[in-house]
């Protein structure tokens, strides 16, 4: 898809590395992706294939990258400023690591608000907690007093505090039960409609991807091996061998299928 004024996010020939010399990991290899404004773009693929690293490069957490990343037509350098985080927010894959263990929910949600000068942070916290399905009784709890799913809802609430335009969602519902997942996915859809948001969504659940996304890219070993529309995914029409295998495996556990799975490089 060519770049245009409709492009919210452009990634061209992105390479990301960790470390130098012999021990270097080349985690993302020549990835190019264009996401239109208002679109939800899916990223799926093998564990360790570089999905989170792509999101981390966009959000400035993985610094050793080459290629081009542009948000709303503006090329990004290595550093990200305050304005960037008002436009782009990330929900991390690992809600345990990303919540400060000694900060209450109130403090976790309040801090970005105060840094970015939101007035009436308290009211915003209350409404955002309601939005993610947590009652006011959760406001002064610590992470260890929350279940896994409750923590992830706090992480999503934190990303929404600044009303960003682009949300990078790394497995936002894989720690949630299916009914909370449905609530969160409905919430994300509603916010998208109301605020014209753009999402990049990493998920292992192809049904979630089909439900949420317009298009998706399939990654393996740091590369994008195939781009599909959600309709192509629904009709199970992949061309790439790895994608085909992914679709087979998504039908459910089968001991014999497990033995037939191949590793692709």
């Amino acid at each position, binding site marked *: 898809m060519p770049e245009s004024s409709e492009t919210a996010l452009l990634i061209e020939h992105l390479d990301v590395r*960790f470390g130098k010399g012999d*021990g270097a*990991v080349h985690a993302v290899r020549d990835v190019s992706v264009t996401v239109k404004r208002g679109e939800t773009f899916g990223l*799926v*693929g*093998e*564990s*360790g*294939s570089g999905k*989170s690293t792509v999101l981390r490069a966009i959000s400035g957490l993985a610094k050793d990258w080459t290629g081009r990343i542009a948000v709303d037509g503006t090329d990004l350098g290595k550093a990200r400023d305050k304005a960037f985080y008002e436009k782009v927010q990330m929900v991390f*894959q*690992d809600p*345990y*690591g990303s919540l400060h263990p000694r900060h209450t929910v109130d403090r976790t949600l309040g801090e970005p608000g105060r840094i970015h000068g939101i007035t009436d942070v308290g009211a915003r916290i209350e409404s955002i907690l309601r939005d993610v399905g947590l009652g006011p009784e959760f406001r002064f709890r610590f992470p260890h*007093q929350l*279940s*896994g*799913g*409750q923590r992830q809802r706090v992480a999503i609430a934190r990303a929404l505090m600044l009303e960003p335009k682009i949300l990078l969602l*790394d*497995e936002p519902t*894989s*720690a*949630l*039960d*299916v*009914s*909370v*997942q*449905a*609530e969160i*996915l*409905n919430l994300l*859809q509603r916010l998208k409609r109301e605020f014209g948001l753009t999402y990049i969504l990493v998920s*292992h*659940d*192809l*049904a*979630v991807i*089909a*439900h949420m996304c317009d298009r998706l890219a399939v990654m393996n070993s740091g590369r994008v091996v195939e781009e599909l529309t959600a309709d192509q*995914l*629904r009709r*199970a029409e992949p061309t790439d061998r790895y994608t085909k*295998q*992914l679709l087979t*495996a*998504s039908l*459910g*556990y*089968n*001991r014999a*299928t*497990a*033995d037939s*799975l191949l*590793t692709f490089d």
Partner: protein
Amino acid sequence: MTAPLLEVDGLSVRFPSRNRVVEAVRNISFSVGREKVGIVGESGSGKTMTGRSVLGLIRPPGIVTARKMMFDGIDLLALSEKQMRDIRGNRISMVMQDPKFSLNPVMTVGKQIDEAYRVHSGASARDAKLRTLEMLEAVRIRDPERVYNAYPHEVSGGMGQRIMIAMMLVPEPDLLIADEPTSALDVTVQMQVLAIVDDLVSQRGMGLMFISHDLNLVASFCDRVVIMYGGQIVETCKAADLHNAQHPYTRGLLASLPRVDRPVDQLSTLVREESWKLEPGVDARIL
């Protein structure tokens, strides 16, 4: 019939705080034989606390009570902390829901698995390393040598989960409690990793408590399912029959799943009935 590997009768877990008590688990009874028992239920329904209770891992101020907790002829309720430690990580292992949180951040992945193995087997450092590399390969880590020398923050979410699984399988436990062990894995790697666990159950007679949100996975992978709500077991059935479950709560969970073959605008969500919490709960023991 012989006694099940694990029998739990009347387990409750409470967290008292200043003005109220959180009843995380309320008087549940279940058993695990040399089989795969799935535990499903919404977030906060008490799945993790159930698993942790079996291992004596509920921290104060949490209070655990039960009429009975028998593991392979051992009365878990009567064990001292030291005796419990011997069982833990030796005969019963738990893969925690939060892999990175459970790994030591300043120690390489390889050293941590080595240690788990050496404590259990008394093997030499060299043998332990070989065994660790073997396990990393078994859980489909692509470059075991690199990951052996990596720190937890240098591996992906799904790699962290596989490292935890490798570490917990090293001592060859009789009972594995796996809390969302594969939620960060793509479906192909997930299937390969589960095949290893499956083989341990069918070939070595390990028992498995498989805590998961993934109803389709539980239906296809497990033998039996226990469904939890509000700290209770509200229903139990054969895994293969999960899609025909009867309780409105279970039906609500199933209805909220997105489906590749059936697009909808809005996903249906659960409407919780007050009365569910007042039900007596079901006994999920097979004795």
